[in-house]
């Protein structure tokens, strides 16, 4: 987890000033996406506010901000929207959920994602030992298996990964995610997947949290909610995986970058998951009025839309051509294996079609 405000700001006031252009950029394009959906969606049912927000983010950044050479002015706010707005959005989503429903979906998801993460790391180790080195492969497996960039950055110091291994793993995960982001809604629509199935699938296969939420919402509100819970279960497993990997590396006599202890488990636990659970507990206890519940639910959707614009603005055309093809193919291969596993687990074990 990143510390805020970043080192280059020496006060909260300075940081707020620094992020406001980017936050404004994402908010305006988010409102535009919402308005455009009303015009486009009746004619093209697959194009909804999620896809429009991401596309506006991509084109706004690459065709306007980059051409005018003002990206750095907007970047801190864009980063803030994709991380903090997303997490606040997930917490507020909990306010319109029944706690029993959350534990039921989360319980279903927990074993499924624990296996998918293990599969990702195992396959990462195998393909890595033949190409990038085992450490790089494990890092990629952790990225694809848990939550992309954050999982890679959190586990890199434990695995004592070198900069090149981190960059390769990041490149592979980012491009794999990009393919899932645009491919999965098309596949789901083409094969007519149900909302529950799409939710579980998106939550298990997509590496990045924002993208899992986006892919689910691109299908429907229910799919988006299930994807968010499934993805949160994966995020909650991150510290366990990091500790286990550190433990395995120590057993094998490999050096680890940080001392393995229980404190690390809490330190690496994503706290917004606690907020989400707390919000759904408060909702189940009946402390919200119906109006407040509607407001919190709608606010959560608005934060997600703003975050989706930021997600699109994070896609940089110029970086795409510079990546090595091999790690990307490996990353896609791992994601495909997880997708095949998830497909059968959801159909056969969870009995969801």
């Amino acid at each position: 987890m990143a510390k805020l405000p970043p080192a280059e700001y020496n006060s909260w006031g300075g940081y707020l000033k620094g992020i406001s252009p980017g936050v404004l950029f994402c908010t305006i394009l988010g409102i535009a996406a919402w308005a455009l959906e009303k015009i486009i969606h009746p004619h093209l049912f697959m194009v909804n506010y999620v896809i429009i927000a991401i596309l506006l983010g991509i084109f706004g950044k690459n065709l306007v901000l980059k051409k005018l050479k003002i990206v750095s002015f907007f970047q801190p706010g864009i980063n803030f929207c994709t991380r903090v707005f997303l997490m606040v959005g997930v917490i507020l989503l909990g306010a319109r959920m029944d706690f029993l429903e959350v534990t039921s979906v989360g319980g279903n998801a927990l074993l499924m994602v624990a296996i998918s993460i293990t599969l990702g790391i195992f396959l990462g180790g195998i393909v890595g030992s033949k190409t990038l080195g085992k450490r790089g492969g494990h890092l990629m497996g952790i990225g694809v298996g848990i939550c992309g960039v954050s999982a890679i950055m959190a586990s890199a110091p434990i695995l004592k990964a070198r900069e090149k291994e981190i960059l390769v793993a990041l490149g592979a995960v980012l491009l794999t995610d990009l393919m899932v982001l645009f491919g999965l809604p098309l596949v789901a629509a083409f094969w007519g997947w149900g909302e529950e199935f799409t939710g579980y699938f998106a939550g298990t296969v997509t590496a990045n949290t924002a993208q899992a939420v986006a892919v689910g919402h691109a299908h429907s509100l229910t799919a988006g909610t299930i994807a968010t819970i499934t993805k949160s279960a994966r995020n909650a497993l991150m510290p366990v995986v990091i500790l286990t990997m550190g433990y395995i590396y120590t057993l094998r006599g490999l050096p680890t970058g940080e001392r393995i202890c229980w404190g690390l488990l809490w330190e690496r636990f994503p706290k917004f998951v606690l907020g989400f659970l707390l919000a759904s507990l408060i909702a189940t206890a009946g402390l919200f009025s119906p109006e407040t519940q509607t407001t919190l639910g709608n606010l959560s959707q608005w934060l997600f839309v703003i975050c989706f614009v930021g997600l699109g603005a994070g896609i940089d055309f110029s970086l795409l051509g510079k990546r090595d093809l091999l790690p990307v193919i490996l990353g896609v291969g791992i994601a495909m294996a997880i997708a095949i596993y998830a497909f059968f687990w959801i159909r056969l074990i969870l009995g969801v079609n």
Partner: protein
Amino acid sequence: MSFKGKIEDDWLAFWMGIGIILLGIFGFLPFLPW
């Protein structure tokens, strides 16, 4: 006032979320119908 300390982004999101929820519980959040 001099600048003190930093906060992890997930803790910041946690407190922002809880803050908004508390505003909602105590009726200080304006109604957002859409």
